């Protein structure tokens, strides 16, 4: 949505991502914030910032599929796993340079995602949700059972070598989080930019047409099969990147990181952030990653006053998680992004109401 009073005098200006000066100012502020973060936060909060950056990439990927193309997916955890295991096996076991392994993991996850997107050609809405639930369970089972121990060698997990490339090596405790922050921040910014621009292309527009009314989209010449499958491929690509980064950043891969719970967490991110909005995916990733952390810190702070919070921490975190999803869906189904837009509108029209 652009502000009232913005006149476009050429097509190029209309196609621009940002039209007003305020938007550029906000963008600059965001850039400054990204640069300042590593100088002000300690290692603990840096690790959370890094988790958020990875979640942003994954949430943007999922939002392309769910928010923009209207295809529900409960298979996010499975696709993250595909990215993580592929990248680790290629880099640590086959000796491929890590960035190359990550790139391969992105491509491979896109392929796997497209395969599991095939039911989407015949199914819609809840049927697709159930189909992706099944694919999540099947992928999870496959990793967990690890028949022949070809994934983890019988350990149940893989230790991952410290990330390094062309003589550069991530350092020890004191610099670890900050070095990763630089890498992850660059990748997250690139992912967000790529996704933002995707929806200015014909392909991205066809995704939205499929979401809004698939039969009408077909009537105006959108190739439904191609649009749905590319949506699965593009989205899974992002998710594969997030999975591979999770593996290399946390330096251990095991099936517990890729359960149905993770799929649900990512869906919660894009719902709370705002379906069909890239900015929303970012807000949602930040919000949902911070939520349990904040609850934990509050519980620790009030441990002497309300011991219940500390004793029941996991349950309190889960209850809040459920409650947040329910409340957002009932009160503001379009999420944090819409809230933010409403705030902006309020100040744009102030002192008038509309």
């Amino acid at each position: 949505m652009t502000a009232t009073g913005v006149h476009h005098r050429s097509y190029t200006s209309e196609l621009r991502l940002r039209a007003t000066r305020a938007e550029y100012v906000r963008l600059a502020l965001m850039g400054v914030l990204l640069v300042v973060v590593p100088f002000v936060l300690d290692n603990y909060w840096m690790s959370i910032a890094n988790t958020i950056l990875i979640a942003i990439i994954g949430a943007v990927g999922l939002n392309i599929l769910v928010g923009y193309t209207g295809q529900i997916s409960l298979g996010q955890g499975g696709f993250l796993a595909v990215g993580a295991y592929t990248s680790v096996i290629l880099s640590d076991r086959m000796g491929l340079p890590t960035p190359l392994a990550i790139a391969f993991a992105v491509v491979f996850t896109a392929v796997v995602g497209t395969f599991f997107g095939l039911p989407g050609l015949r199914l819609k809405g809840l049927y697709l949700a159930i189909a992706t639930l099944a694919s999540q369970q099947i992928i999870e089972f496959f990793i967990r059972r690890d028949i022949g121990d070809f994934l983890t060698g019988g350990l149940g997990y893989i230790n991952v070598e410290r990330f390094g490339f062309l003589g550069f090596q991530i350092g020890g405790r004191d610099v670890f989080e900050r070095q990763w922050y630089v890498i992850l921040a660059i990748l997250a910014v690139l992912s967000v930019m790529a996704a933002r621009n995707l929806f200015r292309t014909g392909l991205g527009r066809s995704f939205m047409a499929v979401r809004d009314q698939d039969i009408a989209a077909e009537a105006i010449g959108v190739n439904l099969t191609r649009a749905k499958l590319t949506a699965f491929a593009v989205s899974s690509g992002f998710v594969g990147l997030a999975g591979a980064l999770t593996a290399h950043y946390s330096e251990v891969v095991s099936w517990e990181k890729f359960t149905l719970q993770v799929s649900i967490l990512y869906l919660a991110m894009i719902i709370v952030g705002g379906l069909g909005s890239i900015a929303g995916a970012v807000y949602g990733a930040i919000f949902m990653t911070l939520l349990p952390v904040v609850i934990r810190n509050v519980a620790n702070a009030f441990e002497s006053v309300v011991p219940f919070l500390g004793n029941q921490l996991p349950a309190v975190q889960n209850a809040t998680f459920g409650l947040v999803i329910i409340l957002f869906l009932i009160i503001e189904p379009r999420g944090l992004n819409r809230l933010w837009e409403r705030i902006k509108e309020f100040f744009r029209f102030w002192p008038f109401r509309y």
Partner: protein
Amino acid sequence: MSTFVSVLAYGLADGAILALAALGFVLIYKATSVINFAQGEFLLVGAYMFYTAFVVMRLPLLLAVLVGVVVATLIGVLVERLILRPMIGESAISIIMVTIGLSSLLRALVQMFYGTRPQPMPAILPRGSVQILGATVPINRLLVILVAAVVLTAFTIFFRKSRHGIAMRAVADDQQAAMTMGISVRRIFAMAWALAGVSALIAGVLLADISAVDQNLAAFGLLVFPVVILGGLDSVPGTIVGGMIMGLLIQATASYWEAGLAVVIPYVVLVLILLVKPYGLFGETRIERV
């Protein structure tokens, strides 16, 4: 032969419970077009409510069942009123997600009150076993099948004969037409959720009796999806047939093939059905026209 008999007994017992859990799911879907991802948690909450009444408060069995039924009804109605009614008209994604949020909330609440340790439940159904064709079959499994059969028959008669049952079918068939005939759609929605709560309570208690009362009861709820997809999302007889087939399939896989595979086989079947016959055995085929 003895393996076959025990697979049959265990499979049908599991299947009967699955059918009961799936019944609630189908009722809600039929009447309100809501996919309830919290069905497993309904099972969980039901079992814990019964546990509280029967073990903690030491009520006699029948009274405990009654308390459980009342609470399950209340929870069902409250969930419909507070959470699902504001969601009318929202997209499928939002409705699915709100029930997922609900499942997380219910599970967390149960954990807060009862902890994560499994609670031992005194036997409700008689223990001991009988010999059938050389197989040792526990009596409680057989009784589970019996109880479920009685409950499912009662539900079926309720839908066929009673005034409310007919009203429910009318609403499921065509909401607008039902409304013009003076049926309160709101009340039917509430009733669907209440009945789902009750059938989940019975399933939860039966399941608790043959295993234990703990958080894993909720995991059982995910198995509802293979069942309803096999039977057809909007078919009551479908849930019974689907439940039985799925229960037998799980037990047969565990006994004849490998125990570990029994976890994943329902989902493999689910995907196959979706690819071949997406509306299941008894589901209504929806044809989209423009």
